């Protein structure tokens, strides 16, 4: 295994493009090292992105959104009060990844590129409308986060492409988001079901909403019917019930060691209801 520490994303992309064997990018390393240790993936070239300028920055964009570097850890996201105030759902999703120790290393982009349908940070990013910058041999482009996952363990990134940054849109007024997941224990598990809700109010009524589910399909899924169920409502019981039904109806899960089809389908509705309430309260100004 060759270990590289390029100084720019362009150089990182070039290394990856020229590599002939298995290539992995290293940011937090909390997935790459597990796979390495288990002998599942032994890269021929390991490209450490942490020596690139700016990978540890979190900065407001001109329009009031956020630009987040690829090596910013979950713990660092959680410590940024302004970011947490804007996008609590995004941050709480990331903060659920692993232990305190893992939080010191794990990153949004790593969680995204691992390609797990159960990745805890991805539903929140998709619900927020986040984008990533993809840098490749032929330059950089912005891609919505939801277009990156391509199935369990797979991404839409092409050979030689690397994600060089994450952009969150401006929060704007009267908005709120939330992420909840179900795990059998209280910590240290992979989501059996995850659900993010992002919404904006007009007065007491929901004007815009996006509901995203994790771990119930080969990739994270956006559920427009679930959003429709609560748009125009004050999140009354009937709306919540419709939301839950729509969320459950959208599930295409599998039976595996972590949960059953029936359980995931049921709990997706439960979490959608609970997450929507939190997002709604946050949009109303609750901390």
């Amino acid at each position: 295994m060759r270990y590289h520490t390029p100084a720019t994303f362009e150089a990182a992309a070039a290394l990856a493009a020229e590599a002939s064997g298995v290539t992995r990018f290293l940011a937090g390393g909390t997935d790459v090292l597990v796979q390495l240790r288990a002998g599942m993936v032994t890269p021929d070239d390991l490209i450490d992105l942490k020596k690139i300028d700016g990978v540890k920055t979190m900065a407001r964009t001109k329009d009031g959104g956020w630009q987040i570097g690829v090596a910013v850890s979950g713990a660092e996201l959680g410590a940024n009060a302004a970011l947490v105030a804007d996008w609590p759902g995004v941050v709480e999703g990331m903060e659920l990844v692993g232990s305190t120790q893992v939080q010191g290393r794990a990153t949004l982009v790593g969680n995204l590129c691992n390609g797990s349908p159960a990745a805890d940070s991805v539903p929140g990013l998709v619900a927020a409308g986040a984008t990533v910058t993809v840098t490749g041999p032929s330059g950089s482009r912005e891609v919505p986060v939801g277009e990156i996952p391509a199935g369990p363990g797979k991404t839409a990134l092409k050979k030689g492409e690397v994600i060089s940054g994450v952009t969150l849109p401006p929060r704007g007024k009267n908005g709120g988001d939330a992420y909840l997941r179900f795990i059998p224990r209280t910590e240290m598990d992979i989501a059996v079901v995850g659900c993010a809700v992002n919404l904006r109010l007009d007065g007491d009524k929901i004007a815009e909403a996006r509901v995203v589910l994790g771990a119930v399909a080969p990739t994270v899924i956006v559920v427009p019917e679930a959003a429709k169920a609560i748009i125009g409502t004050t999140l009354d019981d009937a709306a919540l019930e419709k939301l839950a039904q729509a969320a459950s109806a959208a599930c295409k899960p599998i039976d595996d060691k972590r949960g059953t089809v029936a359980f995931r389908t049921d709990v997706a509705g439960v979490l959608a209801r609970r997450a929507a309430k939190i997002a709604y309260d946050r949009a109303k100004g609750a901390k």
Partner: protein
Amino acid sequence: MPKDELKTSFKWIGTRPDRPDGLDKVTGRARYGADFSLPNMLHAAVVRSPHAHARIKKIDASKALALDGVKAVVTRADLPTGLSGEDLNLQDNTLAGDVALYDGHAVAAVAATSALLAKDAAKLIEVEYEVLPHVIDVDDAFRADAPVIRPGLADHSVPKGAPGNVTRYIEFGHGDVAAGFAEADLVREETYKTEATHQGYIEPHACVGQMGADGKGEMWVCTQGQWYVRRMCAAVLGTEASQLRVTPSEIGGGFGGKTTIFMEPLALALSRKAGGRPVKLVMSRSEVLRATGPTASASMDVKIGMKKDGRITAGTVSFRMQGGAFPGMSPIGEALPCAFACYDMPNVHHEAYEVLANRPKAAAYRAPGSPMAAFAVESLVDEMSRELGLDPIDVRLTNGAKEGTKSSYGPKFNQIGLVETLEAAKAHPNYAAPLGPNQGRGVASGFWFNHGGETSVSVAIGEDGTVQVSVGTPDIGGSRASIALMTAETFGIDYDDVRVNVVETGALGVNEPTHGSRATHSNGKAMYEAAGQAIRELCKRAAADWGIDAEAVEWADGAAQPAGPNAGKFPPMSLREIAGKMGSTGGPISGHHEITMGGVGASFGTHVVDVEVDPETGRTTILRYLVVQDAGRAIHPAYVEGQYQGGAAQGIGWALNESYIYGKDGRLQNTVFLDYRIPVASDLPMIDTVIVEVPNPGHPYGVRGVGETGITPPLPAIASAVAAATGVRLRELPMSPPKVLAAIKARG
């Protein structure tokens, strides 16, 4: 020892001093299995079967051996033939013979100059398999049409016509169960099932082994029993036990799983083949989960008859247990006598079948067999108590075993403390704490025999009057502290003037492992005898100095005291004073005691748990937890509490989320701690404890042993609490959220 001779007031026993190994363990100095290295050492890796059941057609190690730095490969062909019984089991598990019997079964091992190189080399060893039909589930294995995975292994106990995977059968009981059931007001029969769990010690198995062509060898290993390692390695390799010297490292948890061997002979065999260079072998976590010590899985029928007042008139159990693909490994012999041990039963019948399945060779796990049996019996007792509107503790008091009760397994109980634990549980504030919506309370009792076993201890007086104690049982949970306390008490000296060493096999006679809750009990009792021998010599030296008869000298308060007609004639002569001149008064002073220890006192406990169940997700939260257990006498109460709390936490894990999960292909799916879900800190509340002390008359300090019983009651207690919270009774473990939610939904 007669009851009235038991002392009740002590200077050291019952206090909570710092443990002697505490400093090493909080500074990182304590050396565990993988912390040891030797000059010129090689590193080893193991090739394991990816199949649940497969014929090994060919092993080709030529590519691995061609790598620079690869020094040796061993396969079954390198081990001797002609073994039988458990020795053959151990050898079969060390390296597969013609057939790999479970996913993870070792097939070959390789030693190289670095750990990375050994891993690379292991990948280059090519094994050709012919996959055979497999069976995993205990009920599937018991079916008449199941694939028979190892024909011809049924022992003499198996009745004719039993299914082909049955290897052992037990039956016993007393009274007339038919008449007992006829007398009952309520008779219920249910089936319960538990999945295999792992001991889950955080330290993976690790050893460094060295063996020359002459069969002489050394081993450093994390184990519960160095003499067991010595005997078992010698048997597997066909060498002589006394030529192998085994030194136990500090041990990072065992819970029964380190009472046997798994890969230790491989390190020695590789070393022998590599010209005697030492070989280090450390398992990964997934190797630990795939190839070491799970407990049995069980399918259990229970039938109980009860009068309206809660009196039990009869009970029967019929168990099926698998302990892997090796005969004799399931704990049916322990599970059955534990099943009804808490009850005074006039009519009782037990039977159990052991069946083979394509799973790893089961090892002992904390009160082996008792938790499963308790889950079945205590759950049904709770169901019937509720149905009759009776308090579950009252029902247990009505039927509780006490001194003189004919036990469910035959013999009469000596002095025991079950009733005292029930009364203490009933009186505890937790039993009266108010419960909210979706919350419920469960109660269960549990039993373990405790054990004595082969024990050798020596004590030696130092020149400065300090005392060194050599024991052969690795200290897992503070036994050096408890043995030091008893030693200080016996000699009448300070706790800090005692050093207890866990020694290697060359330094002491044979010892059984730290198992069966025996370390404090048996070492304490053997130390007491060895100390008595030393004390007699100390008195003799003082007597000689004083010029009086040795019989006229007593030992008290750490000094020889003239007694009888000489009382007061001489000032007491302290241990320090006698020791300071022992070289010139006859030589070193020591004592030793070797025995297969008796005087064992049975252990009972009662747990009370409150849970809350989320009715929408089926997730169970433990709100409150109380352990009440009879310790006999708590030598170091903090470590007694620690055993209670640790046992409860393991039982909670077993009840809620831990289990072996297999795919249809027979491969284990949860081979890392992410998916083998032991309780984490945020899963548990504080665990309240009450130490009941009904002294064991068979021990000089009343010790019973406290290690094992605590894992037994949580399984049924939590099931009963979940039932109280939700109205649904789960009869299959673990009570994972999908199962609980499905049961809630089925209830409607």
